[in-house]
């Protein structure tokens, strides 16, 4: 029975796919047309490159055709609208029937005090429009009716009564086609989301991950069939995944494109639900690729879901019981607002009591879903702060809801099903708040004061913060800090540093930047924009990279003065560095990062948590060198090779030429001293540029490019297959060309092949650029003239080198290094070089080209994509378009505004704790989230590791100090008294002392500071009284003991 049943299921899935594929095509065409009509052109790929790397073109198109309504323009609505305008939907309509109050300024960054009294939606239109001219932004005021909803693909409500919401949701749910309905609220430190995308919503890609693949090594004739793959990389298939096969030799029946199911998935093999016993016998080859079937989700309408909420999406497993309670709490608050037409007053016991009573009475009606206990303390916090829309909560939920709208419009990623509740009560100060402290002060921070009190508000305003980085995370943070009033008093200070300038591709999410800021420093522009949001912000913008080289700027006094550090970085090296400084100066570090729809946050709090560097992700996988050199089997390998060839030909060699030209004597003597194969190779390259392959006209560059083409894509392949013929066997008798290696074939050049021709032209253009030769206009696009120029080049026939034994001509001699001494060749080359350099015009130099991925007109990506695709053609690897090539070769990190905004919201919820002080580790939270699934994983940080030795114990946050200008021997004795035998003492990256080096013994009676000055070149600045050394030591039983950093206070 079972197999049969499964077959039916598989058949259905297949049918479904066909239908969806058909439907998809239509939808794309329709919406594509709409987008075309709306903006008259295609996706601006320069602007949206980072976002395209997350969604792909096929998702962006329907997104660009979608019209979205955002109702309720307090902080949450503003955040959602911002994320959607940045994402580039077709239109965003803002609706609000209320007017701006001072209260709104704690979370809506589009508003200023001048806007008070205006309609909220109208006050936001112009500033939202500035973010992206391709999106139509408009305002709708007054009452909203169902009829208004019909022209939208998605509608979002951030401030709507439950009754009204049910009415609108019913309309959207039964509309044809259904309109995606989202209701979200943030009330103080509590938030909720509800999604209803209609009775049958099709998700095209449930997780956004690339389909997994494997290289087949064997397939059995069996039922089920056992598929083994090469042990190059672990397979990531899971039981139940569907896969398709291609390039299988022998068992060709599997190449039919029909998805088949995986079972018993193992690291390098799996069973396939298919009877292959009657199929042809497997011979070789084959690639297996996961197919991701679309998923249909049946949403319940709001009315039904309210009483049958099903499973809530969890976020914090220490709050397992909370979502049902919050489901109740939000209903109780809705009832309070309906009955009293207002929110509870902050700190009012009567109002809180009323909300609790409503909650209890609703709970009593729930029957078997009734909660046994109602946490009144939690409801107190909920009710008391409910009027406030806090910026961090708005930022977090703005990210979540923005992503849900994108899902609704595109079918990309799995929607939130259907309720999500969250709270951050741990952000409240440790000591109970007095009602008097919560009273409004007629300031823009009144909302925040109503939750946290004036005492904490003052602390926030006086905070001294260092924010490192001012890119995507940085812009969001600056907005958040400005709204929260952080560093907004005379005593407060926010230092932001970033050494980068603004590029066009930043604009799709770094929302404080505009196109007229391109080329300007990020930190300055962002700081200026943040001061528009809150003119009281005390911000200083610097352009220093945070690194050991800038410790004169970020010196001890700077660090000692800080209250907290916020990282807004995009690389691990800088994160590690800032982490080490924060550990050293004992400062809280709030760390976060994003990758596509994923984000993580980590709190590093002195003595309470481990530091950032204590745990690490494994480094990125790199393809083996031999694979990249000669045996690529996927496009990544081809692109890695392409980038390295680009750098070698266009950057390194011209740089080398210039190094020679600027100082021939030094250059030559250095080559002579080195005397090795590398020096010889470099000399050969220099001579090539100055002599044999020197370019004087553009036609010379064409010739060079054409001959390079022949060399790379024909001659080298012929040589490789001559050395390793298709049928060659390894010593063990196995075929040499077996999976994952792919047998290459030369590409025969044809100027009528546009991809070949445009590659040659692009390469010639860059070659000409390195020689300063003007570029002929006709070369910029493939045409007849260009083809003729290329065809003119005379290409010599290629003869493979006859292995190692036969040495015939001169060139072969110089390449067959075995029989020739490098030093002798180097002498010959030097003589040649000296001769050649006499013929050069005075002042001759080359222009090295540095790879720049983000300029679409510089031909760099054309050359790299061309290199990679021609190589892919050699090895029958599927080619990629320029955009995909750019993502891989440019190592473009996919990035979207939604996950970025959410990460900064989560971090700012922690900032309340770090600045208030007195919190225990249990109050802090680290988060990992993936909006694509969606998944939230919120947990307490890990405490630091404690090391014990005899009576002593310490963590990474401790440091040992010794006073006195001591010698190395005295330091060793000081440690010996603690039962520690030191064998190595280092300072920076230099060894001051190692017991194994006899020559270090004579240093023992010298002062530590003097040895450090001499060996480590460590000059202690005059204001510092100490020097830090790292000591490696063992206890008396020869066990290594990891002791703290030792500070020697020598003056």
């Amino acid at each position, binding site marked *: 029975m079972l197999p049969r049943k499964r077959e039916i299921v598989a058949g259905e899935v297949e049918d479904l796919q066909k239908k969806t594929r058909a439907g998809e095509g239509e939808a794309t065409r329709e919406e594509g047309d709409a987008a075309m009509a709306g903006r008259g052109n295609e996706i601006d790929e320069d602007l949206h490159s980072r976002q395209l790397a997350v969604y792909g073109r096929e998702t962006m198109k329907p997104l660009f055709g979608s019209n979205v309504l955002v109702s309720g323009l307090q902080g949450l609505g503003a955040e959602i609208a911002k994320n959607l305008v940045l994402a580039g939907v077709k239109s965003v309509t803002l609706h609000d029937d209320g007017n701006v109050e001072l209260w709104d300024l704690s979370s809506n960054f589009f508003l200023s005090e001048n806007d008070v009294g205006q309609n909220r939606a109208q006050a936001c239109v112009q500033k939202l429009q500035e973010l992206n001219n391709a999106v139509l932004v408009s305002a709708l005021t007054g009452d909203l009716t169902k009829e208004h909803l019909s022209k939208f693909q998605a509608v979002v409500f951030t401030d709507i009564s439950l009754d009204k919401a049910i009415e609108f949701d019913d309309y959207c749910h039964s509309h044809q086609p259904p309109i995606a309905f989202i209701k979200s609220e943030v009330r103080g430190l509590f938030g909720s989301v509800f999604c209803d995308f209609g009775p049958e919503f099709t998700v095209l890609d449930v997780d956004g991950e690339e389909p997994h693949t494997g290289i087949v090594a064997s397939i059995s004739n069996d039922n089920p069939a056992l598929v083994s793959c090469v042990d190059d990389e672990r397979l990531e298939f899971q039981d139940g995944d569907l896969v398709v096969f291609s390039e299988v030799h022998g068992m060709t029946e599997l190449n039919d494109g029909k998805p088949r199911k995986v079972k018993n998935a193992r690291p390098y093999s799996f069973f396939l639900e298919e009877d292959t016993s009657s199929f042809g016998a497997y011979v070789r080859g084959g690639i297996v690729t996961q197919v991701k079937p679309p998923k249909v989700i049946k949403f319940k309408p709001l009315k039904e879901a309210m009483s049958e909420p099903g499973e809530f999406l969890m976020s914090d497993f220490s709050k397992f019981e909370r979502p049902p309670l919050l489901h109740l709490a939000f209903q109780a608050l809705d009832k309070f607002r309906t009955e009293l037409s207002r929110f509870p007053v902050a700190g009012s016991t009567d109002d809180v009591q009323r909300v609790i009573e409503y909650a209890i009475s609703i709970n009593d009606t729930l029957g078997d879903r009734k909660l046994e206990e109602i946490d009144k303390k939690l409801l107190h916090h909920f009710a008391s702060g409910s009027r406030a829309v806090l910026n961090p909560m708005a930022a977090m939920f703005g990210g979540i809801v923005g992503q849900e709208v994108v899902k609704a419009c595109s079918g990309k990623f799995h929607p939130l099903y259907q309720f999500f509740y969250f709270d951050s009560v741990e952000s409240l100060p440790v000591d109970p708040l007095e009602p008097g402290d919560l009273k409004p002060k007629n300031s823009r921070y009144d909302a925040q004061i109503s939750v946290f009190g004036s005492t904490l508000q003052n602390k926030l305003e006086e905070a001294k913060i260092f924010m490192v980085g001012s890119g995507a995370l940085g812009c969001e943070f600056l907005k958040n800090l400005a709204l929260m009033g952080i560093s907004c008093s005379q005593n407060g200070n926010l230092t932001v540093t970033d050494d980068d300038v603004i590029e066009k591709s930043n604009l799709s999410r770094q929302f404080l930047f505009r196109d007229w800021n391109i080329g300007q420093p990020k930190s300055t522009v962002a700081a200026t924009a943040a001061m528009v949001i809150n003119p009281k912000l005390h911000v200083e913008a610097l352009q220093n990279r945070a690194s050991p080289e800038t410790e004169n700027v970020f010196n001890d006094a700077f660090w000692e003065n800080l209250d907290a550090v916020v990282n807004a970085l995009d690389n691990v090296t800088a994160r590690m560095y800032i982490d080490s400084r924060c550990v050293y100066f004992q400062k809280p570090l709030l760390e976060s990062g994003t990758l596509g729809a994923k984000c993580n946050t980590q709190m590093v709090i002195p003595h309470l948590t481990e530091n950032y560097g204590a745990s*690490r992700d494994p480094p990125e*996988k790199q393809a083996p060198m*031999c*694979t990249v050199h000669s045996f690529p089997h996927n496009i990544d390998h081809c692109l890695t090779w392409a980038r390295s060839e680009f750098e070698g030909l266009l950057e390194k060699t011209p740089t080398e030429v210039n190094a020679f030209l600027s100082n021939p004597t030094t250059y030559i003597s250095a080559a002579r001293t080195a005397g090795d*194969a590398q020096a010889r190779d470099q000399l050969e390259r220099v001579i090539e540029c100055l002599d044999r392959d020197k370019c004087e006209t553009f036609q010379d560059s064409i010739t060079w490019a054409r001959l390079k083409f022949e060399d790379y894509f024909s001659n080298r392949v012929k040589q490789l297959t001559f050395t390793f013929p298709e049928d060659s066997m390894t*010593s063990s008798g196995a075929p040499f060309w*077996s999976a994952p290696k792919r047998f290459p074939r030369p590409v025969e050049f044809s100027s009528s092949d546009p991809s070949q021709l445009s590659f040659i032209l692009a390469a010639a253009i860059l070659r000409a650029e390195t020689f300063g030769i003007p570029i002929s206009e006709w070369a910029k696009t493939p045409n007849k003239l260009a083809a003729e120029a290329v065809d003119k080049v005379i290409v010599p026939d290629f003869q493979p080198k006859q292995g190692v034994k036969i040495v015939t001509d001169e060139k072969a001699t110089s390449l067959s*290094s075995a029989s020739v001494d490098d030093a002798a060749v180097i002498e010959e080359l030097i003589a040649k070089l000296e001769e050649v350099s006499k013929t050069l015009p005075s002042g001759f130099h080359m222009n090295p080209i540095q790879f720049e991925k983000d300029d679409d007109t510089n031909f760099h990506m054309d050359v790299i994509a061309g290199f990679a695709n021609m190589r892919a053609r050699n090895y029958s690897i599927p080619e990629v378009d320029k955009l995909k090539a750019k993502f891989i070769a440019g190592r473009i990190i996919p990035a979207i505004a939604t996950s970025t905004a959410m990460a900064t919201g989560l971090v700012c919820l922690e900032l309340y704790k770090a600045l208030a002080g007195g919190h225990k580790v249990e109050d802090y939270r680290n988060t990992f989230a993936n909006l694509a699934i969606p998944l939230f994983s919120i947990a307490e940080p890990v405490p630091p590791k404690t090391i014990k030795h005899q009576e002593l114990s310490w963590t990474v946050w401790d440091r040992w100090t010794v006073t006195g200008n001591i010698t190395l021997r005295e330091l060793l004795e000081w440690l010996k008294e603690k039962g520690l035998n030191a064998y190595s003492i280092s300072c920076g*990256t230099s060894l001051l002392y190692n017991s194994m080096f006899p020559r270090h013994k004579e240093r023992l009676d010298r002062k530590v500071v003097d040895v450090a000055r001499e060996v480590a070149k460590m000059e202690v600045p005059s204001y510092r009284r100490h020097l830090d050394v790292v000591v490696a030591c063992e206890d008396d039983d020869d066990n*290594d003991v990891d002791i703290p950093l030792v500070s020697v206070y020598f003056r």
Partner: protein
Amino acid sequence: MSSPSKRREMDLMKLMMSDYKVDMINDGMHEFFVHFHGPKDSIYQGGVWKVRVELTEAYPYKSPSIGFTNKIYHPNVDEMSGSVCLDVINQTWSPMFDLVNIFEVFLPQLLLYPNPSDPLNGEAASLMMRDKNAYENKVKEYCERYAKPEDISPEEEEEESDEELSDAEGYDSGDEAIMGHADP
């Protein structure tokens, strides 16, 4: 076990405790040279190479970069750059490994059992597959020409000013240590 900051020190210490001769450049710990002897009973026996070791900031999470500085004829070592294509010191590296593993196990194994199916020096691989005798002669010829103790010592005077003779004395016994573990 211990913090990454001290791994360099500990690894270096263990290496020297195992009697390897280490040449430091001005006492810097990011880059140094280790003298490596061809394993006993291999065609590389008698050869000695100066192997450049680079420990990046991310060590031991990221593998050390390893390169032969004097020539070696081997299917998996690039003839020009001396780079080694070996999975355990590239793709499958783990922070559990250390420098002693590299010099006691990984490199001796590589010299004893070259893998011509994934060559970095195609010429060597092809010769090994086609004509084992010619290949072995060539390996020995290279050892003879480029991997004698005198091939790696003259550079010492230029590159490290402050090396001690007493360290060098240790390396005869170092030989023994390598041979003892070369073929587990």
